[in-house]
């Protein structure tokens, strides 16, 4: 059976088993990856897999199930499991299958050139050799690889709405491990692109080597409060760690500290944040949500006021607010909400003004998955970076922690830059932001 026929069969079985409605997600992925060590191929992987997830609504209760086996028997089992599970779920008056008329939509961003595997492996050899050439103290590049990824995602519901997305990407990364006596230092950097010629492998080399070299002689700074600027990648990591604050689902589940703050001033008046699904500078576009609806730009925070939460059909119905089509669901997960690309609006401060006097530039943070409390906003992370003055590095810094409260931090902004920067995976776009103080533990 063709992919869409499999999905139609699952929906047919769902309805035949008593479901009032059903939707199906089928994801397919193909990838190739390789890693070079000491100028020779060390690892080589190829993969192909697909998975189907079904959600049924029966007696206004939801049941979920997934399978990686597409035989006729397994398709019957996946439906019967979902139906069985629905019997034990709560009655959910806000759950429904998108009931628009039959619509099909697609977004295809597939590969535009044939890539020879050997070209990618040669690129990877070059990455390693060029990093090693830069300094005899570079003892290796323990993280050094390339990959090619293709993904396809299909959505079909029992009202006939069908949506198809296809994406393609190439990536490369490398690292520099520098050893000098008892001292050692490691840094890595990666690049993602649609074409081989667009992979910024020189930046991978430069970034990996530069920071590893600088941090070889790094030391902690004195404990205290410091003005801080995060590199764009670290800012993305920090904002990403608290991104659930925009979740209407978490708000519905009384697990969101911003639940009562809609239309209230929560951050500095200078801060405006948007979710931009099809931002032109982003590598990937996310034009449809996981219920098959087309997305538009969404203002999350405007001049410091919380303007919107991410909604899907269920959360919008629950709060009697407008659906802004941020449904997120994978084949093996329940319906949730999520954002796409983040855009922080630029301010009026020049880079020169922002980088005046002393401040801490944070280039690397560790422990983001564990060192924070989403409900309170408190965080404390290991960090590395540079003590800066007027844009010049005074000292490479490591062995410190930075700690604060995220929700307070966004009210303690000294300045917002007038130029938008992109993170390395082109999913987060923001100007330089100088925060007035973070607590640093050092010496």
């Amino acid at each position: 059976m063709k992919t869409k026929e499999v999905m139609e069969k699952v929906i047919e079985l769902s309805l035949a088993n008593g479901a009032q409605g059903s939707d199906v997600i089928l994801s397919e992925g193909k990838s190739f990856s390789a890693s070079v060590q000491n100028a020779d191929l060390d690892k080589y992987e190829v993969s192909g897999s697909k998975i189907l997830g079904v959600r049924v609504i029966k007696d206004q209760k939801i049941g979920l199930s997934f399978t990686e086996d597409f035989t006729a028997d397994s398709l019957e089992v996946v439906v019967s499991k979902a139906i069985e599970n629905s019997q034990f779920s709560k009655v959910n008056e806000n759950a429904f299958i998108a009931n628009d008329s039959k619509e099909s939509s697609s977004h295809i961003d597939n590969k535009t050139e044939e890539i020879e595997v050997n070209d990618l492996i040669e690129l990877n050899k070059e990455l390693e050799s060029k990093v090693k050439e830069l300094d005899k103290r570079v003892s290796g590049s323990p993280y050094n690889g390339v990959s090619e990824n293709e993904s396809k995602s299909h959505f079909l519901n029992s009202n006939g709405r069908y949506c198809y997305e296809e994406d393609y990407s190439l990536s490369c990364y490398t690292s520099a491990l520098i050893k000098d006596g008892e001292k050692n230092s490691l840094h890595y950097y990666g690049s993602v692109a649609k074409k081989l010629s667009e992979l910024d492998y020189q930046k991978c080399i430069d970034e990996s080597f530069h920071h590893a070299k600088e941090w070889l002689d790094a030391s902690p700074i004195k404990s205290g409060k410091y003005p801080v600027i995060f590199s764009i990648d670290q800012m993305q990591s920090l904002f990403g760690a608290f991104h659930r604050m925009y979740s209407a689902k978490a708000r519905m589940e009384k697990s969101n500290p911003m639940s009562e703050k809609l239309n209230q001033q929560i951050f500095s008046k200078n801060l405006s944040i948007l979710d931009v699904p099809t931002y032109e500078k982003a590598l990937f576009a996310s034009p449809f949500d996981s219920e098959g609806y087309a997305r538009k730009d969404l203002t999350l925070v405007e001049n410091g006021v919380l303007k919107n939460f991410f909604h899907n059909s269920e959360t919008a119905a629950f709060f009697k607010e407008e659906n802004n089509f941020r449904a997120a669901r994978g084949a093996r997960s329940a319906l949730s909400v999520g954002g796409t690309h983040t855009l922080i609006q630029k301010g009026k401060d020049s880079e020169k003004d922002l980088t005046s006097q002393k401040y801490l530039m944070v280039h690397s943070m560790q422990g983001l998955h564990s060192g924070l409390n989403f409900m309170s906003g408190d965080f404390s992370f290991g960090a590395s970076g540079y003590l800066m003055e007027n844009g010049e590095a005074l000292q490479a810094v490591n062995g410190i922690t930075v700690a604060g409260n995220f929700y307070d931090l966004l009210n303690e902004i000294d300045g917002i830059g007038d130029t938008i920067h992109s993170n390395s995976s082109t999913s987060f776009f923001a100007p330089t932001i100088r925060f007035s103080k973070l607590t640093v533990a050092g010496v």
Partner: protein
Amino acid sequence: MLDKNIAHDVINCALEHGADFCDIFVEKKDSQSVSFNSSEVKDIQSGMNFGIGVRLIYGTKSLYAYTNSKERDDLIKLTQTLAASYKTGSQALMQDQFNTLTYQEIKSFINKEMPLEEKINNLKSLDSKIRAQGEYISQVNISMIQYQQNIEVFNSKGLYAHEVRPYCRVATNAIAKDGDKQCSGSWNPGARGGDGFLDSLDHDWIAEYLGKKTKTVLYAEACPAKTMDVVIDNGFGGVIFHEACGHLLETTSVEKKSSVFWDKKGEMIAHENLSAVDDGTIDNLWGSISIDDEGMPTQRTQLIKNGKLENFLSDTLGEMKTGHKRTGSARRQSYKFAPASRMRNTFIEEGPHSNDEIIQSIGDGLYCKSMGGGSVNPGTGEFNFAVEEGYLIKNGKLDKAVKGATLIGRGEKIMKNISMVGKNLDFAAGMCGSVSGSVPVTVGQPMIKVENILVGGNS
């Protein structure tokens, strides 16, 4: 699961294309999860994963591919695709049939079949007991995941091995609120076992633990930021050894010489009071496996004895590249990952000190009652991990509660600073992420004292 004749043909296809070694990993995983929110069932999901991974080794080079298909033609084509990337001669084909491995099976919690409705009632009971701790508990989230991982391993040395691994984990999270103050606390026990483990959970203990913990953190002050002596209590406190040392003893890190310990076997790398073990053979534990994902019976591996580095954790490739013998430590998240040397149940062994002796030995420090997760940079040994519930120590006695603390340091330095080791060894379940994905592991330790560690906090 996979027809042995097909496995035989795939392996011979690899050998015909010159592979020095070939193994096939077959996995079928049946799972069920239930999540609770606001005292109601939020989601119930069932699932089935099935896939096959084929690995070819040429010298020390690893070629890996996976698929959802168990058809002969698909697997042969996959093998040929892999082999085409590494052109060489051919090896002698495998003539004999597979020999089935016999091994001592690690025990799991005695299974007790619980209908889904009974499981839900079990979780409802836990939910209501947590809420009963006080009105400050504003929300409770509970999820339970159970899965049975059924694996087969075939290899070109004629091995056939098979294991069924039952897993069960319950994640509890309570949110406490008082005016604008909010915080959350969690407790996430897991085990090798099925419904029997769910049935064994002590709901009263979990509820009281979460109630006290969230109430303490809700009103705690920010932790001071400075270097100090720290006491880390038992159980999940063992994450310090896992991050600061354990990852650096895996041959995945040793083979690249990126681990600071790669050439330190036989040397003192830790304080003489410290002995540590990685043991996959302990009954019922979340990180226990009867055989590893290369089909080798798992072992108890003494990592450090009285401060001296005794062994590394090794798999087939690790042994080829470093010479360190395999320890039954080859693990992977699923068929989508090639195996790598990974920890199982890793813990610091009991020492000579009482809890009172340890706390009384500190004039000005921090007592970490419960820990969050952490991470390590295997190239430099720099680690970090979070303190969920902590108290200052003043003149040998516990003082006020503090929140938001993180401990950071370098593995090779901190191992020498663990100067006192208690007698109350306990274990806790966690998930560990690394090159071969996320695998269930146990961390453990008795109470320990760490001298001069940097504590990050917001005060």
